[in-house]
C-alpha cells in the first residue's frame, strides 16, 4: 500500500514537471491536475463517468491479476477484449431472442471470444515454443486490424458510419443522467467470484501454487502446464467479458464501432493489476477506480486546459516501472536472507 502511494506520488510529480516544461508555466501543472480531479470526481456526472470507465478496467485488471497469480504475463488483454467485444456484438445483433435471454448469451460470447484469442498464444507456446508475450502482442495488432476490417466490411450496418448493427441486449444505465451502467455489478460479481475461487477452491490453490513456484508445485503432484493454460484462458475470458460489457453497456456504443480497439481498457488492465499488487485480489477494485478517474479526468483536462490526455499514458508508464521495482524475483531471496538475519538477532544467536 505504501509503495503504491509512493509510486503514485512519483508519477504525479514527474507528470507535473513534464506539464510545466511543455507549457512553459509553473501554474500549468496545478491547473491541469485540478481540471483532471474535477473531471474525475468534481460532480455527480463526473463520478458517473469515472465509475463507467472503472467497470471494464476492473475486469481487464482482474484478467492480468489472475494470470500474474499463476506467474504469467497476459499482455494480450487488449486483443482479447476487442475480439470478445465483436463476438458479443455479433450474437447481440444476429440472434432474434428476448433481451433477458440475449444478454447472458452476449456476455458468454464475449468470454468465449476472449478465451479463443488467449488460446492462440498458449497453443503457439506449447507446440512451437514461441514466447507468449510476443505472440500475444502481435495478436493485439491482429485483433485491431481484423475487427476493423470486419466491422467496416462484412459485418457493417447500413449507413455511413463503419460499425455493426445495434445489439438487442443492453445493460441499462443505473440512472438516465449518468454514464454508469449495470455492467458495474457484473464486474463486482466477477471480482467476488474470482477472489473466492482463488482462496477457497482446489483450482485456485493449484493456480497460486504454480505461481509461487512451478517446481515445488510439480513435486506436490500439480501439472504446471495445465494450470498455466487454464489460468491464461480464464484471463482471456475476463478480458473478453470486459469487451462485451463495453459493447452492451457503454453509451454511445451498443454496437461494435470499427475503431473499437482505440479504447485502451485492455492495455490499462496491466497498470491496474500492477497498482493492485500481489496481495488481496480485492485491491484491484480501488486500482480500477483510480484509473477510471484518471481516464475520465484526462478527457476533461484536455478539453479545459489544453493539456493533451496522453499525459495519462506517461503517468501509467511511470507507475508500472515504479511499482514493479519490488515484485522482481531477486529481492525475494534478499528478503528471505534479511528475515533470517532478523530472526538470528531476535533469538540472540549468530546467524
Amino acid at each position, binding site marked *: 500500500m505504501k509503495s503504491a502511494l509512493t509510486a503514485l506520488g512519483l508519477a504525479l510529480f514527474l507528470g507535473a514537471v513534464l506539464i510545466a516544461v*511543455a507549457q512553459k508555466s509553473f501554474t500549468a501543472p496545478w491547473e491541469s491536475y485540478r481540471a483532471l480531479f474535477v473531471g474525475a470526481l468534481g460532480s455527480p456526472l463526473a463520478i458517473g463517468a469515472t465509475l463507467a470507465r472503472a467497470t471494464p478496467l476492473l475486469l481487464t485488471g482482474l484478467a492480468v491479476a489472475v494470470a500474474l497469480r499463476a506467474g504469467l504475463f497476459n499482455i494480450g488483454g487488449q486483443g482479447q477484449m476487442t475480439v470478445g467485444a465483436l463476438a458479443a456484438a455479433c450474437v447481440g445483433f444476429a440472434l432474434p431472442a428476448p433481451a433477458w435471454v440475449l444478454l447472458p448469451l452476449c456476455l458468454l460470447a464475449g468470454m468465449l471470444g476472449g478465451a479463443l484469442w488467449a488460446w492462440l498464444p498458449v497453443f*503457439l507456446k506449447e507446440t*512451437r515454443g*514461441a514466447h507468449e*508475450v510476443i*505472440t500475444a502482442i502481435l495478436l493485439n495488432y491482429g485483433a485491431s*486490424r481484423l475487427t476493423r476490417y470486419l466491422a467496416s466490411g462484412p459485418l457493417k450496418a447500413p449507413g455511413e458510419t463503419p460499425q455493426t448493427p445495434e445489439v438487442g441486449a443492453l445493460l441499462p444505465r443505473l440512472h438516465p443522467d449518468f454514464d454508469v451502467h449495470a455492467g458495474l455489478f457484473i464486474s463486482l460479481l466477477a471480482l467476488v467470484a474470482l477472489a473466492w475461487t482463488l482462496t477457497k477452491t482446489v483450482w485456485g490453490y493449484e493456480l497460486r501454487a504454480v505461481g509461487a513456484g512451478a517446481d515445488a508445485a510439480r513435486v506436490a503432484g500439480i501439472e504446471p502446464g495445465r494450470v498455466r493454460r487454464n489460468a491464461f484462458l480464464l484471463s482471456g475470458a475476463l478480458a473478453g467479458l470486459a469487451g462485451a460489457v463495453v459493447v452492451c453497456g457503454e453509451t454511445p456504443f451498443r454496437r461494435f464501432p470499427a475503431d473499437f480497439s482505440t479504447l485502451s481498457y485492455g492495455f490499462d488492465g496491466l497498470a491496474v493489476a500492477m497498482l493492485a499488487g500481489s496481495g488481496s485480489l480485492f485491491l484491484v477494485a480501488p486500482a480500477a477506480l483510480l484509473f477510471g478517474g484518471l481516464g475520465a479526468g484526462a478527457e476533461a483536462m484536455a478539453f479545459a486546459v489544453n493539456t*493533451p490526455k496522453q499525459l495519462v499514458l506517461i503517468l501509467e*508508464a511511470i507507475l508500472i516501472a515504479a511499482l*514493479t521495482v519490488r515484485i522482481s524475483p531477486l529481492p525475494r531471496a534478499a528478503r528471505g536472507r534479511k528475515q533470517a538475519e532478523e530472526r538470528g538477532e531476535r533469538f540472540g544467536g549468530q546467524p
Partner: protein
Amino acid sequence: MIPLLVAMLRLATPLIFAALGGTLSERAGVVNIALEGKLLAAACVSVAATALLGNVWAGALAGVACGALLGLLHASLTQALKVEPILSGVAINLGVLGATDFAVRRAGSSGLEAGRTAPVEVFIVLALLSALALWWLFYRTPLGLRLRACGESAPAATAAGISVSALRFGVLGVAGGLAGLGGSALALTGLGAFTPDMSAGRGFIALAAVILGRWNPLLAAAAALLFGLGDALQVELQTRGVKIPPDFLELLPYALTLLALIFFKTRSAAPASLA
C-alpha cells in the same frame, strides 16, 4: 520486380536494425520488448533533430543517441532496480507512445516534418554490415563468447569472473542504438515525417524475426527481409488498386508473422535463461 525488391529492402531496414538489437540483448539474456518504443522514440527525435539542424545525418545520429539512452534506461530498470524486463519494456513502450503523442499534440499538429529525406541505400548497407559485424562479434571474439554465456547462464558467467550486469548495461545501450538507427531509417527514408504510433508494432515483428532467426544475427536479418517482402507486397497491392479492402491488407504483416511462428519450431534455439 526490381521496384518490389527495392521496396522490400527499404521496408525491411528498420526491421533488420530492430531485430539485430533484439538478437544482441536476448543473447545476453535480457528480453527486450522495449524495441518498439525505441523505434518510435528514435523516429520522432530524428525527424525533430533533422528539422532543427537541417541535416539528416545529424538527425539520424540524434535518433541513435535517443535509442541508446532508452536502452540504458531499460538496463537501469532491469539490472539495477530489478524490474521484470517485460514490464520495464511495457513501461518504456507506453511512456514513449504517450510522450511522442503528447509532444505532437502540444505542437498543435498531427505530425512532424523533417523537411528532407535521407538516401535509403546508406541505411540498407549499414543494416547488412551491422548483421555481419554482430555475427563476427558473437562467434569470433572472446567478448561474444562472454556475452552468450550471460544469456545461457548468468550464475555460471558470474562464476567465470564476468560482470554480468556491467556487460548487459553495455549490450542494452548498443542494442538501443541499433534500434535507434532503425527508427531513424523508418522516419527519414520514407516521407521524412513523424506521425504518432508510426512504428505500428514493427518492434514486435522484429522480435518475431529474432525468434525465427534462432537468435543468429544473419538469420534474423534474413527473417526481417522476409517480413519486409510481405510489407512491400502489401504496399504494391494497395498502390495497384487491387480490390482488397485496405484494412484487410494492413492485417497481412501481423498475420504473416504469426503464420511464420506457427510453421517454424524454434524452442530449442532460445538462450537458456530466456526459455
